[in-house]
């Protein structure tokens, strides 16, 4: 004595299409909710992918030494005592080379300066480093040479420029040997970078690279922005990390004032941050489903009150309360399921459009978010359809059929 599922579905579809406007309204409410989940989690996921790909371009055997101590309780104390961390110096960087497992060391100074040649001039990011940076970051030269000397502790007025900057300043002229002005100093161009390659948000095509000490002079600072250390093997990462901390500590009068991070740690952190961001925006979007749910409940209540005669009749010809309830629940969940599918489609199309507008953003919604949105929508239909369905099931058939 139980109705076949296909019959239930067929019966519900028949009831639904009798009121196309009502059905459209419910579909719309649900699909907007689901589409916003798909779009927002897509954006969150896109941001996460963007940032992690930025950082994974660093290379897996890389350690980054940055001034200042984080991650221990010492941080808080430092903040309150107003102590600032000691600067990282070029000599600190060069001292790290002693360890057998250290393959390359590249000190990094960053800043921005006006770069000009003849009448053309523009603001550009300036990177101070040494010859090791090229190999360490896997960059390619288009022309000429990269910076000289790995252990260079003297300033020299040479520079390497990114491909876009070269194009803008020199057009089709050969820049090698030309003297450009960076800030208030003259630098001779000794090489140009090949296009492609990114580095933590800095577009390599857009930068000027000069020797470390030249950059320090230019920006009038004795300190380094950070030190990049390439380790010979992945297994040695932790050992080298401890070595770096110990060495710098010894050089800084026993003060442990640097932080050494590996790419894994950075990636992990960003991954966590962006995953929770995605969850948050997805959750906010999910709240809109509750609104849709309330709409569904109201529409279903109207439906039930309009179909009292039908409900009474169904009981008279042998439907149990349970069957009536199932029929209305199926109707609600059918509408929400179709609405959810439409919402997923709308979300996908919107994501494609956003991706088309911002190609750098790989904003495909994660599968778990799409699945969760669908399930959530169907649950919303079941939860908010439950009350109207129960009301239908409890309806007094005599009253419904009486037509007094």
């Amino acid at each position, binding site marked *: *004595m*139980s*109705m*076949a599922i296909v*019959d239930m579905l067929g*019966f519900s579809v*028949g*009831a639904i299409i*009798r009121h196309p406007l009502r059905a459209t309204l419910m579909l719309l409410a649900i699909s907007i909710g689901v589409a916003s989940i798909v779009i927002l989690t897509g954006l969150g996921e896109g941001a996460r992918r963007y940032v992690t790909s930025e950082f994974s371009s660093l290379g897996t055997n890389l350690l980054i030494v940055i001034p200042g101590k984080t991650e221990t309780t010492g941080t808080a104390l430092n903040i309150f005592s107003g102590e600032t961390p000691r600067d990282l110096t070029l000599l600190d960087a060069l001292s790290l080379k002693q360890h057998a497992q250290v393959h390359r060391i590249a000190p990094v100074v960053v800043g921005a300066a006006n770069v000009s040649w003849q009448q053309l001039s523009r603001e550009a990011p300036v990177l101070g480093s040494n010859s090791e940076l090229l190999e360490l970051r896997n960059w390619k030269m288009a022309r000429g040479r990269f910076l000289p000397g790995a252990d260079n502790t003297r300033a020299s007025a040479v520079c390497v420029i990114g491909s876009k900057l070269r194009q803008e300043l020199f057009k089709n002229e050969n820049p090698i040997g030309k003297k450009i002005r960076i800030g208030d100093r003259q630098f001779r161009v000794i090489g140009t970078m090949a296009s492609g390659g990114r580095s933590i948000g800095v577009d390599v095509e857009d930068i000027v690279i000069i020797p470390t000490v030249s950059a320090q002079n230019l920006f009038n600072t004795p300190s380094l922005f950070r030190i990049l250390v390439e380790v010979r093997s992945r297994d040695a990462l932790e050992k080298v990390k401890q070595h770096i901390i110990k060495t710098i500590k010894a050089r800084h009068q026993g003060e442990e004032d640097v932080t050494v991070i590996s790419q894994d740690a950075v990636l992990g952190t960003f991954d966590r941050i962006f995953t929770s961001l995605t969850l948050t925006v997805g959750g906010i979007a999910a709240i809109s489903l509750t609104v849709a749910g309330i709409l569904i409940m109201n529409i279903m209540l109207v439906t039930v009150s309009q179909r009292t*005669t*039908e409900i*009474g*009749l*169904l*009981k*008279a*010809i*042998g*439907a*149990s*309360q*349970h*069957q009536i309830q199932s029929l209305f629940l199926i109707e609600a969940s059918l509408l929400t399921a179709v609405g959810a599918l439409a919402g997923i489609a709308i979300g996908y199309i919107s994501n494609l459009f956003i991706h088309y507008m911002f190609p750098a953003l790989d904003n495909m919604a994660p599968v778990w978010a799409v699945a969760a949105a669908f399930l959530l929508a169907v649950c919303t239909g079941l939860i908010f359809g439950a009350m109207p369905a129960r009301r239908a099931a409890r309806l007094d*058939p*005599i009253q419904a*059929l*009486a*037509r007094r």
Partner: protein
Amino acid sequence: MIRLTDINRVFQVGDQQVHALRDINLTIDNGEYLSIMGPSGSGKSSLLNILGLLDNPSSGEYELEGEVVTHLSDEQQAVIRSTQIGFVFQFFHLLPRLSAEENIALPMMLAGIAAAERRKRTRKILDTLGLTDRAKHKPEQLSGGQRQRVAIGRATIMQPRVILADEPTGNLDRHSGHDVINILENLNQQGMALIIVTHDPELGERAHRKIRFVDGAITVDTGSN
């Protein structure tokens, strides 16, 4: 066989009690043809609703085929409504979105009978009702008499033991009313018990057993045989 013992039905309306049925004792044999008459509000429909398990008595016992059905669960009562009882109403109560044949097949669908079997049985009954060429028509495209015939088809498609007809001709002209009564009497001759509530004396006289209701109680019962 139906046996009602001391059936009372009391409705609470605000702080007033309406006694729709008072101490009804009634036995109806299988295959009987029975008419119930009486003034408006005398409790005829209330009795039919209890007989059809759409309503439960306030007190008393209802026995159907030797089984006391008064305190069965909703689920169990639904099974009995589905398999043993066929309702025919004054206002037809066809589902407007379903065609004639779909309306007739509805009880079978609820009972989970397979589509092929449903089609077979529906076709047969449409034929006996003279509605074969109206199978695909919606109720609004049918005359009153045709609608009531569809409703009778729906009431009998599950081969019930009893047909409960509450003023089945109340909404029909004389001619189609006769058609409907003929069909119902035919079904009675095939063995289904037929219980008709009516205000039409001529129609009431046709039944083999006549019951008169006044104020919720049976005042006349011409008795079986």
